């Protein structure tokens, strides 16, 4: 479910970064309030654990294929939503940098799609209410399956929306959704089963490690903070989305605007013999003047010259780089 940079437009990426940063801000504040230094190494080691478990594939019964854990729900059940969310950010950033799973610009989307839903929705709205009066095998199975299915469905739906809003695909909304949701329904169900198996093992061996079990008294506070968080995030999204789109449509080209303000025109005219001589040299030597074939006004030449020019620049830059590297190595050998 990792989004790639190529699948999103900068405005969507920016909006999702703002939303994810908001959730990260709340999480950092909450973890700081706990002022438990010992939690930091646990978060690091658990992050590496989730990273490594994602390398282990599980068989999807009856299909002959395999999948891997997302881990958000499991982390939340062990670390709580806030520390779990911050750990997931670390996991996603490291995955993106080391293995190109995701992208730097798409990180905001991935954090939202996988960490926010898994940790906040999964932990605060599903795990905690189910566990508030104590845990049992049946409750863990219910919370894990419900949590994984719902959060993966929300994540997959967000992937669809983010891609469609970015204008990347021509797939109709209904087709895209109809493809994404059932796949993630199956994955979510199996992930839920596996998460519950692991958590039941923990519950039977070391039940004190599970988060949010029997904490009915904190329900009110948690509800309030989540509500506040959602309101803040929604307002941030509206402001950001509105501002970015307004700015993008009002000022499409900064330099031309500046030139028009200063000179009254976006194209400057120059006079004098030096300019005339330079112009005549340019006209004689340029292969494709004005992005077109010489003595041609056709649109055909315009497009062709653009492509030829671009490829020429790319090729020349490659040649230049190789020459530069060759001479540099020669100099280094001489110095040695």
């Amino acid at each position, binding site marked *: 479910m*990792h989004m*790639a*940079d*190529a*699948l*999103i*437009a*900068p405005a969507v*990426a920016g909006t999702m970064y703002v939303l994810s940063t908001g959730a990260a801000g709340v999480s*950092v504040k909450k973890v*700081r309030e706990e002022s438990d*230094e010992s939690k*930091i*190494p*646990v978060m*690091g*080691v658990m992050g*590496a*654990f989730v*990273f490594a*478990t994602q*390398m*282990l*594939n*599980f*068989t999807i*019964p009856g299909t*002959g*294929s395999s999948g891997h854990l997302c881990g958000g729900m499991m982390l939340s059940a*062990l670390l709580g939503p806030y520390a779990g969310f911050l*750990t997931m950010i670390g*996991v996603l950033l490291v995955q993106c*940098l*080391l*293995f*190109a799973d995701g992208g*730097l*610009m798409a990180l905001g989307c991935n954090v939202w799609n996988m960490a926010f839903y898994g940790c906040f929705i999964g932990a605060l709205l599903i795990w905690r209410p189910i566990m508030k009066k104590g845990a049992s095998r049946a409750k863990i199975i219910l919370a894990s399956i419900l949590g994984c299915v719902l959060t993966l469905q929300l994540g997959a739906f967000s992937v669809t929306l983010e*891609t469609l809003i970015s*204008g990347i695909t*021509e*797939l109709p909304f209904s087709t895209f959704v109809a*493809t994404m949701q059932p796949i993630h329904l199956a994955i979510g169900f199996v992930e839920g089963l*596996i998460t519950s*198996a*692991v958590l039941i093992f*923990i519950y039977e061996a070391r039940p004190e*490690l599970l988060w949010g079990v029997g904490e009915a008294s904190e329900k009110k506070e948690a509800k309030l903070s989540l509500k506040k968080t959602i309101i803040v995030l929604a307002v941030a999204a509206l402001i950001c989305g509105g501002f970015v789109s307004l700015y993008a449509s009002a000022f499409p080209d900064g330099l031309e605007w500046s030139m028009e303000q200063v000179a009254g025109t976006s194209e400057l005219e120059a006079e004098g013999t030096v300019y005339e001589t330079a112009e005549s040299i340019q006209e004689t030597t340029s292969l494709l003047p004005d*992005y077109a074939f010489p003595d041609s006004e056709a*649109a055909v030449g315009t*497009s062709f010259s*653009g492509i030829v*020019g*671009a*490829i020429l*620049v*790319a090729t020349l*830059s*490659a040649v230049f780089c190789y020459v*530069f590297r060759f001479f540099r190595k020669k100099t280094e050998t001489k110095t040695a």
Partner: protein
Amino acid sequence: MNSIEKRLVELNKLQDLQQRSHWMNNLHPLGKLLISVIYIFLVTSVGKYEIVPLILLSVYIIFTYIIGELSFREGIYRMRLILPLVLFVGIFNPFLDKTTVMIAGYSVSGGMVSMLTLMIKGLYTVLAVYVLIATTSIDDICYALRTVKVPKIIVIVIMLIYRYIDVMSNEADRIYTAYRLRAPGQKGIEYRSWGTLVGQWLLRSMDKARVVYESMHLRGFKGDFILKKKGVKKIDVIYPIVWGLILLFIRFYAGRGVL
């Protein structure tokens, strides 16, 4: 070689690249991080039918791979993880987008062009991240993140995750190898085995985390890592500025109105 072993090999290769004494490795990490983000931003901002600016934007990739002595093959290989989703999203464009676009005098289906630009964007963005990570260690990236005021708790968690990936991945490899020897020919681990197999491992990891914390605490850990301050040289400033200007020029002027 199974998938975990392949990833470990990939990780070791990256660590070797990061430890080279190449001048690009010695550049300030903040500059490299910023220019990578700017590059990815500009690539993704190119319109779906604009092929010329995309070809021109390859200049950055060509420069960094040739001068940085990086392998194009290794970079392209990293596409494998994002390729399925990118392919799924783009593959229907030729059938659904009936717009006609003129390219080199020929009428071409807009869907074909948009699929091509999507693939190119996917390739460039993956290659750009590879340039960053092959010339900058995670510790240096964390230093850059701290410089731009990313909360220290997030940065510390990233550094810890990175430190323990090797240990955890090796453990995952041992578990998987042991399982495969007992269940030959099975694809993945059967879901009924996950409870005890991964549960045990999880408990060991939690205990390991406690030992790690105690060791760190005994060595004076006060909730932060002390990162050595990096000096800023002329090249550290010139490199991102020059690239920033070149890329902005290419994106907004060089290919403008051409296609």
